[in-house]
């Protein structure tokens, strides 16, 4: 790891420690007698039993995918606030492939990629060809995607749990009842960890993180995408097709979010619930990406971390609201805004020292 990377990691760790401290202070204010135990719960629940650890890995997978999606868009100069919609549409495509058409899990994941990519392409196309800010389009299409998916599910009787003999009308069918081959393989991990949550989803997500890193940092294609993000005009001058790259960035970001939806709902432990509120998983991708400074490999750790303290947060109830965890994450991100400054100071001081040494050498030679 180079020096810049080290500074980044150090800044993130300082932010995390300060965020935790802030969380502890809140615990102390709201319920002093339970505060220490609460902190202990946040910090250790995720590792207390293999089952809890399985849950950490299970929720980390979709978080990692939406985090990658947001981070990838950040790297190419776009703000993908539409991860929620892409995640929803991706989940829908995966579930349709699995339940309606009885396809195996890997086809479901491909379907989810296509669904997410379509939903990601829309803001990209609007930005490239109509000059509409991608943030606005993405916000609009989060809702359109949610309502569209709900509308479609209500008109596909086979998709609903009620078709398969379950009493719910507002949930999709349980995959284990409808099509066992669409379940993500567990490879016996569920028996090792004694946790129903664990499956290969987290490994698929990590694989995607590595691929994303390679594409961004080791290919001409990734370089062009990043160049467009730094300066659209300059890259156009250098012969890069900026419009095409904007759309492609959003397509890839959308596909990543879509896979997140597939990983979450193909696990067999979650069923899509038809509701009128946007899914939070897409928005949680934003802190995951920010915490990792949008680095795909860093995202692996930030997704694990956020999932870990969220599992810890569930153990806080009923003495505290589990939203204390969200406060901690928010504080960490807010502080990471400071750390940009810290980073700059460190590099500036470094550069000054360097310049002084150079000057000194010049004087000696004279």
């Amino acid at each position, binding site marked *: 790891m180079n020096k810049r990377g080290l500074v980044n990691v150090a800044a993130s760790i300082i932010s995390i420690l300060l965020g935790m401290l802030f969380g502890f202070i809140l615990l102390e204010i709201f319920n002093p007698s339970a505060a220490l135990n609460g902190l202990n719960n946040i910090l250790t629940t995720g590792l207390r039993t293999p089952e809890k650890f399985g849950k950490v890995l299970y929720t980390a997978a979709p978080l990692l995918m939406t985090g990658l999606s947001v981070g990838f868009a950040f790297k190419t100069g776009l703000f993908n606030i539409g991860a929620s919609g892409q995640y929803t549409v991706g989940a829908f495509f995966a579930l349709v492939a699995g339940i309606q058409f009885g396809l195996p899990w890997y086809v479901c994941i491909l379907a989810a990629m296509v669904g997410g990519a379509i939903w990601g392409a829309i803001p990209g196309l609007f930005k490239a060809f109509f000059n509409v800010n991608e943030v606005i389009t993405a916000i609009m299409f989060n809702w359109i995607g949610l309502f569209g998916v709900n*509308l479609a599910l209500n008109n596909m009787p086979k998709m609903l749990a009620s078709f398969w003999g379950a009493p719910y009308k507002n949930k999709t069918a349980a995959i284990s009842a409808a099509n066992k081959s669409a379940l993500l393989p567990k490879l016996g991990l569920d028996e090792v960890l004694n946790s129903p949550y664990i499956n290969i989803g987290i490994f698929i997500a990590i694989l995607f993180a590595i691929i994303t890193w390679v594409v961004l940092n080791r290919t001409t294609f990734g370089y062009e995408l990043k160049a467009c993000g730094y300066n659209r005009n300059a890259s156009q001058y250098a012969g890069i097709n900026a419009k095409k790259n904007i759309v492609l960035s959003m397509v890839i970001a959308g596909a990543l979010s879509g896979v997140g939806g597939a990983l979450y709902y193909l696990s067999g432990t979650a069923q899509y619930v038809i509701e009128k509120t946007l899914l939070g998983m897409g928005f949680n991708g934003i802190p995951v990406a920010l915490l990792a400074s949008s680095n795909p490999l860093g995202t692996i750790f930030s997704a694990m971390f956020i999932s870990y303290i969220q599992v810890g947060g569930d153990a806080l109830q009923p003495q505290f609201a589990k939203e204390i965890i969200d406060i901690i994450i928010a*504080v960490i991100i807010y502080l990471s805004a400071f750390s940009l400054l810290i980073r700059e100071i460190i590099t500036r001081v470094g550069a000054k020292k360097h310049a002084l040494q150079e000057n000194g050498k010049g004087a000696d030679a004279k």
Partner: protein
Amino acid sequence: MMLLADILSSTLLFAIPLLLVALGGMCSERSGIINIALEGVMIIGALISCLILGQLNNAYQTACKMLEAGEGLSGWWALVYRLIHDAPQLAVFAAILAAALAGVLYSLLLAFASINLMADQTIGGTALNMLAPAFAVVLTWAIQGQGNTTILIPNWTRITVESSGAVYGAGFGQSVQAFFEKFLFKSMYLTTPIAIVLLIAVSVLIYKTRLGLRLRACGEHPQAADSVGINVYKMRYIGVCISGFLAGIGGLAFTVAAGSGFQSTVAGYGFLALAVMIFGNWKPLSILGASLFFAFFKIIGSYSSSIPFLPSFEGVKSSEYIYLMLPYLVTMILLVLTSKKSRAPKAEGIPYDKSTR
């Protein structure tokens, strides 16, 4: 006719939070700061004002019980009783002020990070958006007890025909009078007239005052503004504070419109307001039009089953979702049609660094 009055009344009710918050976003962006934290600011404004209204209501209920029991009221109890009983709108006004103040304080966090520390405005805004609902849940949980995180809006906050004391459209016959009463008083809160006053105030401030001119200059070309002696940092602080002021009130306006009390969320209205602001081309009057337009289509969606001439999509189950999508689809189409004319403040989103002058 009555249905029309219903729809118009609800349209106005839901347009008000969009209008206020979009105006706030405009003030901030005109000074050069993208305030993506509007959603969070709304929640904080709503939280503080609803807490105040809720606590006042509790005190009022206690005072009422004391009266019923035949006890005399004294000091604090007498004060609260007289306030709520005789002048409830004064209490609402105090809550609105508190919402505005809370919004200003909360948005200062964004201002500090993005102006002084030159941090990425999206990052700071995202953090504040995440912090606000979580903080609201934790605080209401701590105050009201486990799991009970809804703050109900007391009945006396609504302005009714009786309490306003005026007669509207009386000269035009019974049906017109009934129409006006329904349109104006089906759901009228103090936030509505205040929003209209604020709309005028903001328009004047931005276009007719020296401060407004300076503010706009900092959003277009801060280096040039600095070179003629305008304090860019100060202007941007003012822009962000105004946006916090308006968005805080907008949060309360949303909560009274939603009707089911404060539940630590404003259902994405902060983000929608950003869309309305862009749709309104960063101009106050266009923003008014855009928010009425969006709210109208949203209300059409929720009234779809009772409007006779709308297609009912026979054979499609849960066709209400088609209408729920409508405002978003129509807004997108209009954005495409008007995007050629759309012009954002040039320097928005870029931290001002004196050394780049």
